[in-house]
């Protein structure tokens, strides 16, 4: 019995995947980006439709300039945790900037978005409390449920009535109830019915945390996310999100009106026991936020592009989620079909994400695409065209 025996199943699946399509879908290398929308993969110019870089700000000249200035002035890292030597004035500035953007009083910045969910959820829902999770929650939320000590109850995906029913079952239990939803679900692009979820929160007296990872900068008149779009920001106790999508950098945050967020800093292990964000990332993040605020038209262009891409794929007869959002999950029937299609797309110069069960919600494989504000109409149309060409090349049996 070897310590590695538990990995043999995945090793075999990976070998089968490669046998079916030739590539390891988990080891795609973007040799270098040429712009926010085009990168070199396997030596070829490839259209990027799977980077979550919704506003294209990973290549923002203002953010690049800010990062260079910061790195020259402050060096490349902090070498410490936020609660020890890892807090510089820039960290406090970023927290104030993010809090003020969301019209909230308090903000904690984390080193990644994953850690923001892991830390906030595992710390808030303690022993004797209840954590209510959407069935299709992101891995960071499930991992938080394992790190913490609360009793964990799943409710049906995007189903406020089901959440209400499950909260009712535990209404006489003494513990606090923390409900966690996501603004846009990362695999399917489904948008949470936020107004209805907020109503359940009000009726049941529970606490509500929204992960706006994929909806920050994307939804709402000012890009504050799904809670702003639904007009229910006052009902949300905690907003968690990431800088690694719309802002194009890395890092996570939690904002709240509750002053107790300051106490969470002293209880939250994924915040306390890791190095803080380096100065250049903070400077770039603040500059990207300036860009986002200065160019609200990026959001309009993003949604127009999403609608164009979504409609184009539907015209080809492909199955996608019903809601138009910048995340477009193409649902396929079989894993071999998904693998062949994904490989052909990449060979034809289109990069999307291959997502296989059980990482997908209902045992169907997905080709997960993400649209950007910086895609041109021609790039969107070309991506749809490549989908059409790739489907035509599929053998009839797939």
């Amino acid at each position, binding site marked *: 019995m070897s310590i590695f025996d538990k990995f043999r199943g995945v090793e075999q699946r990976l070998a089968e995947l490669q046998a079916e399509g030739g590539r390891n879908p988990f080891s795609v290398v973007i040799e270098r980006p040429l712009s926010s929308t085009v990168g070199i993969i396997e030596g070829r110019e490839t259209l990027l439709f799977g980077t979550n870089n919704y506003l294209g700000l990973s290549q923002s000249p203002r953010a690049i300039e800010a990062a260079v200035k910061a790195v020259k002035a402050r060096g490349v890292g902090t070498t410490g945790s936020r609660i020890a030597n890892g807090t510089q004035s820039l960290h406090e500035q970023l927290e104030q900037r993010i809090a003020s953007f969301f019209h909230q009083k308090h903000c904690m910045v984390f080193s990644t978005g994953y850690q923001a969910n892991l830390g906030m959820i595992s710390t808030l829902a303690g022993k004797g409390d209840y954590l209510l999770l959407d069935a299709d929650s992101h891995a960071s939320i499930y991992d938080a*449920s394992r790190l913490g000590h609360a009793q964990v109850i799943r409710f049906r995906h995007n189903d406020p009535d089901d959440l209400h029913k499950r909260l009712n079952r535990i209404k006489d239990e003494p513990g606090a109830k923390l409900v966690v939803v996501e603004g846009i679900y990362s695999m399917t692009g489904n948008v949470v019915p936020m107004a209805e979820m907020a109503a359940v929160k009000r009726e049941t007296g529970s606490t509500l945390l929204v992960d706006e990872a994929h909806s920050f900068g994307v939804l709402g008149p000012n890009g504050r996310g799904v809670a702003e779009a639904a007009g229910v920001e006052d009902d949300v106790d905690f907003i968690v999100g990431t800088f690694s999508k719309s802002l194009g950098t890395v890092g996570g945050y939690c904002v709240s009106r509750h002053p107790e967020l300051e106490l969470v800093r002293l209880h939250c292990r994924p915040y306390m026991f890791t190095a803080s964000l380096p100065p250049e990332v903070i400077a770039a993040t603040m500059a990207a936020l300036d860009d986002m605020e200065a160019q609200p038209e990026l959001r309009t262009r993003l949604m127009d592009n999403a609608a164009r891409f979504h409609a184009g794929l539907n015209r080809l007869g492909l199955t996608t989620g019903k809601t138009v959002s910048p995340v477009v999950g193409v649902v396929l029937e079989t894993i071999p079909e998904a693998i062949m299609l994904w490989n052909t797309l990449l060979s034809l110069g289109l990069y999307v994400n291959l997502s296989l069960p059980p990482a997908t919600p209902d045992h169907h494989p997905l080709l997960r695409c993400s649209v950007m504000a910086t895609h041109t109409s021609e790039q969107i149309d070309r991506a749809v065209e490549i989908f059409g060409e790739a489907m035509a090349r599929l053998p009839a049996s797939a």
Partner: protein
Amino acid sequence: MSETVQDVSALIINKLLANPKVPRDINGSSKIVEDLAFDSLAVMNFVMEIEDELDVSVPLDRLAEIRTIDDLAECIVSLKKGG
């Protein structure tokens, strides 16, 4: 309504047999992951169906201790009694 472990176990087996992919010879001591070839997501989704039928929520941490159909039935009966 007070179901016994046998009642709940029978209900679970009936529900499982409605799925044509599940082996026909399952019983209370069948192991959910090994014998039914369910992955973690399939187990959680199946338990959700049982929860609705019996108006009970099985917390995920309790689910981690469950191996067989009878274990799941015992857990549900104990939760319904307030445990």
